[in-house]
């Protein structure tokens, strides 16, 4: 039930964003993320954006994963 899906903000109207993933759009309230901008990816759960996804952190985690994989070669 705590499932939340990464969706891209494609429009913002006050505190309500239109978010999109794979052609599906959903309204999401931005009350928790006043810093969110157009083009950001946010985790959407039950009509609310609960977290902004940090691209740099995502890239860092993927780097770490590759490094761990290399270490065992």
């Amino acid at each position, binding site marked *: *039930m*705590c*499932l*939340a*899906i*990464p969706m*891209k903000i494609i429009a913002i109207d006050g505190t309500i964003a239109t978010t999109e*993933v*794979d052609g599906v759009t959903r309204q999401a*309230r931005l*009350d*928790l*993320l*006043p810093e969110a901008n157009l083009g950001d*990816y946010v*985790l959407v*759960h*039950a*009509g*609310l954006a*609960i*977290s*902004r*996804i*940090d*691209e740099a*952190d*995502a890239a*860092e*985690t*993927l780097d*770490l*994963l*590759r490094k*761990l*994989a290399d*270490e*065992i070669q």
Partner: protein
Amino acid sequence: MKFSEEFRDKELIQELARRLQALAPGPATLMEVCGTHTMAVARFGLKMLLPPSVRLISGPGCPVCVTAQKDLDGFLALGEVPNVVLTTFGDMIRVPGSRTSLDRLRATGVPVQIVYSPFDAVELARQTPEREFVFFGVGFETTMPATALAIQTAASAGLTNFSVFCVHKTMPAALRALVGSPELRVSGLLLPGHVSTIVGAASYDFIPREFHLPCAVAGFEPLDILLGVEALLRQIKSGSPQVANTYRRAVAAPANPRAQEILAEVFEAADAEWRGLGAIPGSGVRLRSRYAAFDARQKFAAVLSQVPPPVANPCRCGDVLRGLLSPADCPLFRKTCSPSQPLGPCMVSSEGACAAAYRYGG
């Protein structure tokens, strides 16, 4: 899907799995606290990738599953109040109460409306002022801010026909009860990623500090989960427990400050009854008195006081939720209990351990 596919890279999964084999300590039982983890682990077949000495068991992190029978019976009783429309997340629909369930009520003509969000329930109430809408507020911290905002929205719209039957529960308080219980035998906890976006990774610091138990906050893609397991195995090996945050792209150490403000404005801590874990002090919330008009427990207090006590049920979800019983070891599993004839919430919820074991094999 960006931020999903990259974390499903088959080759990286295989390589990481090999690394885990190299890291494997002696026998270790890790608990994935969150039901969304349980489902992802089953769906991606991750148990097969783990070293044979490492066992993953499910915990109490499926909100549908931990909702106490008494609370479910209470919400179901409101279906008998004339003019009431019950609104709920779809997950609750088939969970058997003591005497009926939401889908059985619906079959007898009681209006039960599935909503995607509590905001939709408020919107229904706004559109249909002649009816009374009650929302079943189920969920952990991930879901609580949406309910709180929905209540604020209803209040500022001046609605008098919307209320929440609140059974929300808070994760850190429940974890304290769980890890403090002498029957729990685990060597590490995989902590819920989405609850953590709200409460912050630092809210679990007490677990390694007071209970010397390794912890990892993890996301929900296969690589996220394996990375979480890697962090746990590494801590077990080094003997220095901490809270590793392996879901940095979405989770920070501190709590979300806006969420904390909104939650504190609408809710106050209260004791809560958990299926399996019993009553845990301070592990739930109730509406603050300034929002009493939106509290279904107060609005319908007379009806709720008449609800008979829960009927005993042979289902052993309570043991499954505490990691004491694996679903396949329940004598009813696959015999009298299946997703089409569920005896307990763990078989109903898409995130229940019994449903996951049924669909994907335990």
